[in-house]
């Protein structure tokens, strides 16, 4: 830990890492905790206020092993709420950097690269919100070849790279291409069957999640993805090709994405797909992307019912 001369305390060390400077502005009000989706949805022990306090108290090991250090995805919902305007995610990132230097590793399951499939295009490195993948060179059969490698301590598991990887060379358990397509309903009947790809974070209330699950499975098939950054237009088309009548992709409102840019990435991809469907004179309403805000409880029902109605009407018109 000799990166800065004269470092005394753990708090000083954190402050010396870019982003950690604002630590001492924190007066532990806890507004950040009330805003945090991780605390509410995943890990009750997740607590930015407590982590910052640990740092100030010099509790190095407790900070390094705290879930808060590793689970923060820099969504920055707390940043906009903090009365002291502390960029909390960057303070947490500073703690994480020190933890990694000290040999601690992320408890999250990172994506991995299959080098047999990787062409070294670097798309994953460019699209990742956390800059977890990067390219490296090694000699294969006497020729210098490029491959992607992933820093497992930086990867948050959003799957944006998995969807962007042209060759299916990058994946994580639960979000691989095969695992997603395996969830397509097998024999869609001659009814307005639809698939809802939903980001695990966009429906923030239990009642919304319950609502989503309340539809009969053979009518509304729900496929959970970590983030809509994981949506692959190929999958939307393959679903329609398999006989599904509509695909609804449900993500977060811009600015509320848990993985920083996933919802906007999805917006670009579905936007492109929509344009191409239009160019082919195919009905564009079969694929729809909705961005649901934290305050829009119950909107998912309107969106699903709306699509079911549209699909039923167009099927009746055809019959």
């Amino acid at each position, binding site marked *: 830990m000799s990166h800065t001369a004269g470092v005394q305390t753990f708090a000083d060390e954190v402050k010396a890492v870019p982003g950690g400077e604002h630590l001492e502005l924190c007066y532990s009000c806890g507004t950040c905790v009330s805003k945090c989706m991780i605390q509410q949805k995943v890990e009750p022990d997740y607590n930015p206020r407590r982590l910052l306090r640990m740092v100030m108290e010099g509790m190095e090991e407790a900070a390094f092993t705290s879930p808060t250090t590793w689970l923060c995805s820099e969504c920055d919902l707390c940043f906009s709420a903090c009365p002291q305007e502390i960029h909390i995610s960057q303070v947490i990132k500073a703690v994480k950097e020190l933890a990694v230097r000290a040999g601690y590793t992320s408890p999250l399951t990172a994506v991995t690269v299959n080098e047999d499939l990787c062409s070294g295009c670097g*798309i994953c490195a460019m699209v990742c919100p956390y800059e977890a993948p990067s390219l490296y060179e090694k000699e294969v059969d006497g020729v210098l070849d490029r491959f992607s490698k992933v820093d497992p301590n930086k990867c948050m598991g959003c799957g944006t790279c998995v969807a962007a990887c*042209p060759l299916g060379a990058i994946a994580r358990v639960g979000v691989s291409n095969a695992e997603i397509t395996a969830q397509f309903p097998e024999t869609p009947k001659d009814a307005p069957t639809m698939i809802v790809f939903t980001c695990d974070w966009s429906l923030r209330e239990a009642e919304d999640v319950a609502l989503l699950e309340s539809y009969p499975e053979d009518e509304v098939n729900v496929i959970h993805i970590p983030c809509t950054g994981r949506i692959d237009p190929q999958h939307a088309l393959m679903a329609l090709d398999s006989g599904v009548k509509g695909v609804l992709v449900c993500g977060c409102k811009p600015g509320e994405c848990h993985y920083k840019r996933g919802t906007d990435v999805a917006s670009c991809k579905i936007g492109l797909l929509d344009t191409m469907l239009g160019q082919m004179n195919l009905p564009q309403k079969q694929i729809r992307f909705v961005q649901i805000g934290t305050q829009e409880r119950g909107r998912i029902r309107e969106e699903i019912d709306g699509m079911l109605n549209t699909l039923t009407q167009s099927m009746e018109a055809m019959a």
Partner: protein
Amino acid sequence: MTSKPKLAFYWAASCGGCEITVTELGMRLVDISEKADIVFWPAAMDFKYEDVRAMADNEIDITFFNGAIRNEENEEIAHLMRQKSKILIAFGSCSHLGGIPGLANMYDIESLCQRVFDTSPSVDDTRGTRPQTCTIVPEGEIKLPALYEQVQYLADVTDVDYFMPGCPPVVDQVWAVFQAALSGNLPTKGSVIGASAKSVCDVCTRKKGEPGFRITEFKRPHEVELDPDLCFLTQGVICCGPATRAGCGTPCLNGNMPCRGCYGPAEGVEDQGAKLASAIGALIDTDDPEKLNQILETIVDPAGTFYRFGLAHSIMNKMKYERGTGHETEDLH
């Protein structure tokens, strides 16, 4: 009586570029003619369909079939060549994936005819001409093959043994395939031959984008002075290399032009255009969500760009023509 293998070449809906790539073999064609007999090659030699019809089934050892299936004649000869050939190779992008002619599947026949026969600036539109399958003239009846509603690729209409991509296939790959075929060293049926498994990026030596690179505006190649050492995407120019099969030897990249995708989808790509939309869409700068649509609008003709050679082979094409969800539901727009 000869024991030399028999080769045939045919062109269906194509531009002739695949034929030129065969002639580019130059003196090596003489080597081929020593090892094999060319028994049918309408573009270069005087054979008739009747000559082929007179052959026994499977009499031709290998047929190299280029061009898409656009009309009745294309399909009829595809079936004929299949019947007469032991090995049928879809040769070049059009035969493999529909190629450039496949882009016509964005339009219906009537609007295509309107453009070609009525509104094209170089055409006198007063006669309302349309191609007829049968026309009576003083000398008798003139027959033309009927145009199909959609452009198809060879495997749409008949059983194909191998697929050789490229617009056109590059000459060194053609030579390598000839040698493999004549020595009986072709891989398992259904394989893509004369190409690699990975993508063009695997062999491209340009410097890739840094982590976190984002595109803020797309440009067409003529709108920007291109750096020959940098990845085209990092210069805001769409390159289809990431999802396109390698094997071409990168002549376009060497000429400082981005990959247009003619070698078709690389292994692991289900749908070339949708995959490119997934990869390139994710590179767009998302810092200001308000601007996303403006950036997207700088991609001129996304379907024609991402599916330039493979629209007829795309899932969208299947949805439009096989499931018939195209025209009946136009009112949804």
